């Protein structure tokens, strides 16, 4: 146990009971650190339950800006007797266990290698607050107060946050601050404050914001001009639509308070995507948000939209499958079912954001791409990205930017034309010209269908016409590969022997894992895939390396499958690094598996080579 003080570098985990009001106190804790300029990432590990089951809130505090999950807990705030045993066990040697010692700890739970910090929270609150329900709520605030002393939080920041939280309900501010002070004063008086693990003001946050991906995507839809949203509630996508509606009610009203948007809670996901497709066919930008089970239900409609060439935007905030799986845990396991959603030779465009900023940008981009490509665009987020607050670069919007509504003929265009055929490939990019319903009295109308048709949208079962149409859709797919976000590649010149591929939320632990591997002499070229179809650069990255690790948060290596089949790659070249337990993959797992692979296969490390 080293006695060295460490600043702004720890994992603190709060163990609570779901529905006990801990969420807002824990959120305040994270926000206070953020306001002190310290990078933080939060993880809400919650049950599929409204009240009573255990829930955890983890805050990664990292001056170096590591926002991914790290194994081991430095400070455990154990407020749930039911999970006490496992909570105590998860503390790293030398770490701290913070608990309510109003009742003595069971002896068998005592560990000699950690520091116990007991505070008689219940006991102190008993005389202060009469109402037992209030007492329960203030317990959370009291431990917050104690932690402020123990970890050296800026108390003024914390107090000002109470003020913000209860703005308009001023009567609540005083008792909350009182509860804070009870905890803080006790700690100051009876405990050794601050602990070895503590915080100090920093400027590492810069101008970054703290937000979750669902809010970011909702804002992207507002900025990207979505006017119709149809959805069916499902965790973890629900908050995306709720955020859209909230922002739209602020930002999208006309001078009479009438709405320049429509949000419809559908009867199921089939109806939700049906509404999105109907609205998009009729010229409105529309989207839905769902998770795995909803994606499965939507798949017939996604085939219609692919084949009939109707734009649609779908956010799939992934959770752990199969079936209902672990509905409140994260995974990247819908990749294949999204990429090939629907029967027949169907392929779907995917955008894969890694940060809230990308959620914002990809949402707006998805609306443009869907119109440009006249096809569904699925934004694959996940529970951690969608629901957990994390540091993000602030969002930027260029006021000169115009929505790309794709190829759409107006009435004037039609008047200029000799003739019109909806599916003619005039420009050679596989994309025809649409007309919106109601455009012209006599020109440009056509019948949209999921059955085969010729380039004039006339029904046909001619093999030649069918094949020509399917080939054109293939050309369009190539066009898509050139329009979707490019991969983020970092490679040395010439390329190293080994590379690593990752995507989505693996971005955060990856930075940390790469740093750790570098310390061990393992240096890798990296590529973060951000979209499907893959561009040539994606396949080249694989072929120019001897071995490529593919890091994924699913069991079957879905990205690996997609790469091998789409790029006709040699699967022996790809080594899967996977975690699918429902928490996000950690830097520890990535670094350990790769290091082990190097050792087992006696691969040369740079430091060995150079030394």
């Amino acid at each position: 146990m080293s006695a060295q003080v460490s600043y702004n570098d720890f994992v603190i985990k709060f163990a609570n009971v779901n529905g006990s009001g801990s969420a807002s106190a824990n959120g305040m804790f994270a926000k206070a650190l953020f306001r002190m300029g310290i990078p933080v990432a939060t993880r809400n590990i919650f049950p599929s339950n409204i009240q009573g089951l255990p829930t955890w809130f983890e805050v990664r505090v990292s001056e170096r800006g590591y926002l991914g999950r790290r194994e081991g807990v430095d400070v455990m705030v154990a407020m749930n007797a039911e999970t006490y045993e496992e909570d105590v066990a998860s503390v790293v040697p030398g770490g701290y266990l913070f608990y309510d010692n109003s009742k003595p700890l069971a002896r068998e739970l005592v560990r000699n290698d950690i520091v116990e910090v007991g505070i008689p929270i219940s006991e102190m609150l008993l005389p202060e607050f009469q109402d037992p329900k209030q007492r329960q709520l203030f317990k959370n605030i009291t431990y917050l107060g104690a932690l402020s002393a123990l970890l050296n939080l800026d108390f003024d920041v914390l107090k000002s946050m109470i003020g913000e939280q209860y703005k308009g309900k001023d009567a609540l501010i005083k008792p909350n601050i009182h509860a804070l002070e009870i905890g803080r004063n006790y700690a100051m008086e009876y405990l050794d404050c601050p602990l070895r693990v503590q915080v100090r003001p920093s400027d590492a946050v810069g101008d970054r914001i703290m937000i979750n991906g669902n809010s970011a995507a909702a804002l992207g839809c507002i900025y990207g001009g979505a006017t119709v949203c149809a959805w069916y509630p499902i965790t973890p996508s629900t908050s995306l639509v709720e955020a859209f509606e909230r922002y739209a009610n602020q930002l999208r009203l006309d001078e009479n308070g009438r709405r320049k948007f429509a949000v419809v809670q559908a009867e199921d996901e089939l109806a939700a995507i049906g509404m999105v497709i109907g609205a998009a066919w009729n010229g409105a930008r529309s989207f839905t948000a769902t998770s795995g089970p909803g994606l499965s239900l939507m798949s017939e409609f996604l085939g219609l939209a692919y084949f009939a060439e109707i734009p649609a935007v779908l956010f799939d905030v992934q959770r752990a499958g199969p079936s209902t799986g672990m509905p409140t845990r994260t995974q990247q396991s819908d990749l294949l079912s999204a990429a090939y959603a629907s029967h027949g030779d169907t392929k779907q465009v995917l955008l894969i954001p890694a940060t809230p900023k990308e959620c914002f940008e990809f949402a707006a981009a998805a609306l443009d791409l869907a119109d440009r490509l006249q096809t569904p665009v699925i934004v694959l987020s996940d529970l951690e990205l969608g629901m957990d607050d994390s540091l993000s670069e602030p969002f930027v919007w260029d006021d000169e930017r115009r929505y790309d509504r794709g190829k759409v003929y107006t009435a004037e265009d039609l008047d200029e034309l000799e003739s019109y055929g909806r599916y003619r490939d005039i420009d050679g990019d596989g994309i025809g010209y649409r007309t919106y319903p109601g455009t012209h009295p006599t020109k440009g109308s056509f019948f949209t269908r999921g059955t085969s048709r010729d380039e004039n949208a006339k029904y046909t079962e001619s093999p030649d016409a069918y094949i020509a149409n399917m080939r054109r859709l293939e050309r369009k797919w190539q066009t898509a590969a050139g329009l979707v976000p490019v991969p983020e590649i970092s490679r040395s010149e010439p390329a190293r022997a080994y590379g690593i591929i990752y995507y989505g939320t693996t971005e955060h632990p990856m930075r940390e894992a790469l740093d750790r591997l570098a310390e061990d002499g393992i240096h890798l070229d990296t590529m973060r895939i951000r979209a499907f179809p893959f561009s040539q650069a994606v396949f080249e990255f694989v072929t120019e390396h001897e071995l490529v690790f593919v890091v994924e948060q699913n069991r079957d290596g879905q990205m690996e499958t997609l790469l091998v089949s789409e790029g006709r790659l040699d699967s022996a070249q790809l080594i899967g690094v996977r975690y699918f337990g429902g928490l996000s993959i950690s830097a520890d797992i990535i670094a350990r598996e790769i290091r082990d692979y190097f050792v087992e296969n006696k691969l040369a490390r740079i430091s060995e080579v150079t030394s």
Partner: protein
Amino acid sequence: MSFISKPVVHHPQLGHNDLGLTRRDYEGPISTLCAGCGHDSVSAAIVQACAELSIPPHRFAKVSGIGCSSKTPSYFLGNSHGLNSVHGRMPSVTTGANLANRSLHCIGISGDGDTASIGLGQFAHIVRRRVNMLYIVDNNGTYGLTKGQFSATNDKGSTNKKGLPNLHEPIDLVSMALQIGATFVARSFSGDKRQLVPLIRAGLLHEGFAFIDVVSPCVAFNNHAGSTKSYEYVRGHRDDVVMADFVPTHEEITADYAPGEREDVLMPDGSTLRLRKLEETYDPRDRTKALNYVHDKTLQGEVVTGLLYIDPDASDCHAMLNTVAEPLNSLGEAELCPGSEALDAINASFR
């Protein structure tokens, strides 16, 4: 498709509407359904009704599911856009279309399989949602396109072509629509243009959700003795309520409908259908009575046709959603994008 219009040899008897257009301008390409299929008569009635209303022919949006019935939107209103979607999901697609552009007249065409089986959920919910549209079910009591299986609207005991009886209770779409709050509910018979055309007109003008269940015999699989959706059966068992040339403007609604006259109607197959005299006592503004009436007549083996219920003060989903008057699809960056300054403020709110 080049823009050479059809030869303009108009039928000498075709009149011009207020727009100077004839029925021809509201037609579509030639139908590929079986000769004598009731669905084609429904299409013809739609053409006539739309022409009579003098709505520009491109201002409709036609949406359908899958089935013979759902194919028909490609055979009428050739100057309008149409979307033949997936089986049973016409309601959701039409909802989206209507949300995007409220200024178009939405016509949804479905079949009894499409609506009462695979699409029953969507049917129920579009009724509740009050989408401003005309929803027509071409109801033949069978799955025409998949060759004659019983559908859920088929009456218990009714036989199929092989003589086998249907063992299940039927779903009555009209009663269901009444029960869950439809503001315009009618039933008619494909072979009765005189009744059907005015109903379609009224349904199109209705500000809200309008539903017409049209008994529409399938000549290939369900037009034999023993089927309760055959021409023969329906002709012998109808009970017409409001022979409604009923234009639901607010002034006229307060007056009771005028009693109609005894009519002989020429059927597509050349026979004559005698409509029963209207019941002057029937009040189409009473939902409960309408439900009871349909129920009683069904027990007597009669098919009630006509305008069963109308709420003259109906409103639609746009009113519920409080959307702007302009079509949402006409809004651009200026109306939709809050701009960078607002975004800076949003960023600041996350600090």
